[in-house]
């Protein structure tokens, strides 16, 4: 099993978890960590590889291209939706840069030896 997901750092305070869920995907506020959830689902030997910097770069590129193509996107999405999407992406990037959100690649194995992943 290999998965890429956005999550919160361990040990984040309750207020910061709520803030992370506001600026990022709402389901990042899970009380269990990704390795714990994988363990509950029958996976072991969990390895986590931090890919947060690439996530931030991706958001920066999206914001950059949205700015470059603002006229086209406003025509396509409408002004309100355009502003809303820009604000969401800026908040997401702020959450990443502010240490509220991480994105990691997790690799794990099924406990049964008959399956590789």
């Amino acid at each position, binding site marked *: 099993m*290999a*998965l890429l*997901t956005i999550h919160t750092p361990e040990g984040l305070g309750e207020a910061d978890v709520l803030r992370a869920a506001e600026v990022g995907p709402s*389901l990042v506020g899970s009380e269990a960590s990704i390795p714990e959830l994988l363990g509950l689902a029958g996976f072991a030997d969990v390895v986590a590889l931090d890919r947060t910097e690439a996530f931030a770069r991706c*958001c920066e590129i*999206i914001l950059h*291209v949205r700015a470059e193509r603002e006229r086209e996107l406003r025509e396509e999405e409408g002004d309100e939706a355009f502003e809303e999407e820009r604000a969401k992406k800026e908040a997401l990037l702020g959450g990443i840069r502010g240490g509220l959100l991480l994105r990691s690649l997790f690799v794990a194995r099924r406990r049964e030896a008959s399956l*590789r992943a």
Partner: protein
Amino acid sequence: MSREAGMRREDDMREGAGSIEPQPNREELAAKYTRPRSVAVRAMVRAALGTELANGYTTVEQADELLSLLGLAPRDRLLDLGAGRGWPGGHLASASGCSVASTDLTFEAASLAHRHHVGAGLEDRATALAASGTALPFRDAAFDAVVHADVLC
């Protein structure tokens, strides 16, 4: 494989282990995969992720990393959970020669994933299905590897 044979509706699937709250809004998800991507959006996705076929935040480089970590080979069977447009499972199947089943919550996403698989010449070893991750229509141990990327994001 025909388009009809390659896709099944979730209604046809067996019941699973229950549901996780909150449930995603299916109508919003379906609309996301029904609207064609504009030139501007395609340019944005290509710039950010490296290919217009991608969705979520998984870059081509990261998809290749998944390929390496899973060690996929031609006879392997891969499940791509929450595949959206068929990314990254289609890429992994193309690069490794493995077969892939791409699942997503809505029929619209599965339909788009299927079109992308056919476009990539994967019709003989790729399937796309509308199914919830909590009620997958597969027998136990049907796959050698599982991948998912930004499923709840």
